[in-house]
C-alpha cells in the first residue's frame, strides 16, 4: 500500500510553536515529582512561585544530620549524596541521588532532627520547598495545599507499606533462623 506523503503547513507549525505554553525547567521537574505530579500547570506555577532555587558547590552540605528539618529538596541538575554520621568513623554514604530525585519530604510535616546528612557531590541546582512555604500555600490556597498534603501522605503511606513488608520479611527470616537453630 502506498503511504500518503506527509504534508507540512509551515504557517501552522510556526503558530503551533508560538502558542505552545513555555514551561520553565523548575516547572518540568516539579511536574515529575510524586508530590506535585497530579497538579495542573496553573497550580504548579503557584508552587514555583513558592519554591527556592539554590546552587551548591561540590562537597557543600545541604543539611547536616541533627539539624531541625525544614523541608524537601528536588534535584534539578547535579547529584547529592545522603550520608549517615557514625561516631568515630567516617560518614557512611547511604545513597546517591540524581536529576529529578527528591529527599527530605518528611520534614515538610514535622520539625524533628534530620536523620542523615545531604551533601552536594558536584555543582548542583536544587529546588527547596520548605514548611513555611507549604504553610503559606495552606493559608492562602487551601485547596492546593490539601492536594499537596494528600499526595505527600500517599508517598509516606507507600513508604510505610514497603517498610512494613521489609519488617515482615526480616521477622520471618529471623524466625526461620531461630527454627533452624532449634533443630540443630
Amino acid at each position, binding site marked *: 500500500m502506498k503511504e500518503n506523503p506527509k504534508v507540512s503547513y509551515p504557517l501552522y507549525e510556526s503558530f503551533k510553536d508560538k502558542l505552545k505554553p513555555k514551561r520553565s525547567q523548575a516547572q518540568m521537574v516539579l511536574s515529575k515529582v510524586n508530590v506535585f505530579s497530579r497538579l495542573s500547570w496553573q497550580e504548579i506555577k503557584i508552587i514555583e*512561585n513558592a519554591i*527556592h532555587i*539554590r546552587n*551548591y558547590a561540590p562537597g*557543600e*552540605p*545541604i*543539611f*547536616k544530620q*541533627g*539539624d*531541625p528539618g*525544614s*523541608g524537601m529538596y528536588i534535584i534539578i541538575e547535579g547529584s547529592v549524596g545522603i550520608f549517615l554520621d557514625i561516631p568515630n568513623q567516617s560518614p557512611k554514604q547511604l545513597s546517591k541521588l540524581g536529576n529529578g530525585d527528591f529527599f527530605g519530604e518528611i520534614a515538610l510535616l514535622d520539625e524533628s532532627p534530620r536523620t542523615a546528612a545531604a551533601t552536594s557531590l558536584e555543582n548542583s541546582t536544587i529546588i*527547596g520547598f*520548605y*514548611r*513555611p512555604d507549604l*504553610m*503559606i500555600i495552606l*493559608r*492562602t*490556597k*487551601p485547596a492546593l495545599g490539601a492536594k499537596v498534603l494528600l499526595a505527600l501522605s500517599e508517598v509516606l503511606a507507600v513508604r510505610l507499606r514497603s517498610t512494613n513488608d521489609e519488617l515482615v520479611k526480616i521477622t520471618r527470616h529471623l524466625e526461620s533462623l531461630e527454627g533452624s537453630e532449634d533443630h540443630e
Partner: protein
Amino acid sequence: MNNSPPIEIAPQSLRLFHQSLFKTLVYFFLLILVLAGVYKAFPLVMDALFFIVIAAILTAVFNPIVDRLESSGIKRIYSTLMVFGGIFGIVGLGIVKGIPALLIEIGKIRDVIQQNAAADSLDAIMKSINLKIATVVPGFQLDSEMISSLSAQFFGQLGSILAGALDTVATIIFILIITMFFLVDGTRMTKKLIGMVPNRYFEMSLNISYKTKKQLTNFLKGQLLAALGVAIQSIVGLNLLNWLFDANISGVMLIGSIAGLANMIPFVGPFMGMIPAIIVSLFNNLGDPVAATHFYFIVHIIVMFLIVQMIDNNIISPIVVSGSMDMHPLTVILLILVGSKIGVLGMFLAVPAWGISKVIIQEVYQGLKGHHLI
C-alpha cells in the same frame, strides 16, 4: 664607617608604589565621601526606616485578613484593596463624624471656662479644690488665672496642633501606601531577601523569618484584641456612669478609644486612659457647684476603670494575649522615659516595640541554637 651605596629603587617598583599610594588615597577619599553622605543622609535613612518598621507592623496586623480573603478565591491584590477600602471607610467615617463632634466638645469646654471665670464662680470651686489639694500637696494652690492662662495657651496652640495633624495625616497615608505594597508583594520581597542568604544559613533564616512573623502577628493580634476589649468596656462603663450617676462625661467614644490604645502600655497605660475621662468630667462639671464640691464623679470614674482593668487582666488578656510582655515595672518605666525623648508617639510605641524586639531576639536565638551555630 659603613659607606654602603644608597639603595636604588627600580623605576618599576617606584611606579607600583605610586600607583598603590594613589589607589589608597582614592579609596580614602571615597570612604570620606561615603561617610559624609551617610552622616548627611542619616536622618533621611532613619525616617525611611521608621516608615518601613511601622508599615511592617501594620502588615503583620492586616496580613491574616488579606490571607483569609485570598483563601476564599479573591486575588491578593483585590483582597488588599478590599481591606484598605474598609480601613479608609472606617477612618473616613471617624473623621467625618468625629472631628465636628470634637470641635463642638472643645468649644463647650472653652465656653464653660470663660463663663465661670467671668462669673467669678470659678473662685468658689477653686477654693474647695485647693482645700483638698492642700491636704495632699501642701503649698500648691490653683487659681482661676492659672486655669484661664493654661486654657488660653492651649487654644492659642490649637492652630499649630492642627497644622501638625495635617503633616501626620500625610505621614499616615505614606505609611499606608508602603503597607499596601508589603501586603501585595510581601512574600515575594521576603523570598528575594532570604534568597541572598548563603546556603549554610538559608534554612535557619527562612524558619526564623516565618516564626518571627507568626509570633509577631499573634502578639499584635492579642494586643489589639485586648485594646478593643478595654475600649468597649470603657465606653459601656462611661455610658453607665452618665446614665446611673449623671456623671456628665462627654466624648465617651473618644475617651474609650484612648483608654483601649493606652492599655497596650503595661502598668502606666490604665492610668493614662483614666486621665482624659477625669479631665473632661472636671470641665463639664465646673458649672455644677454640688458636683464640683464633692468630686464624687472622679471616684466613680476611678472605680469604673479599676473594674475594667480587673476584667481585662483576669478574663480578656489571658485568653487573647498569647505572648505576654512579661516585663519588670522598672523596664517599662525606663522604656517610657527613653520613648519620651522622641515624643508622645515614642512613649506610646516604646513598650510594644520592646515586646516585638524580644520576640525577634528569642526566635533568632532558638534558631541559631537549633542549627548548632551557637
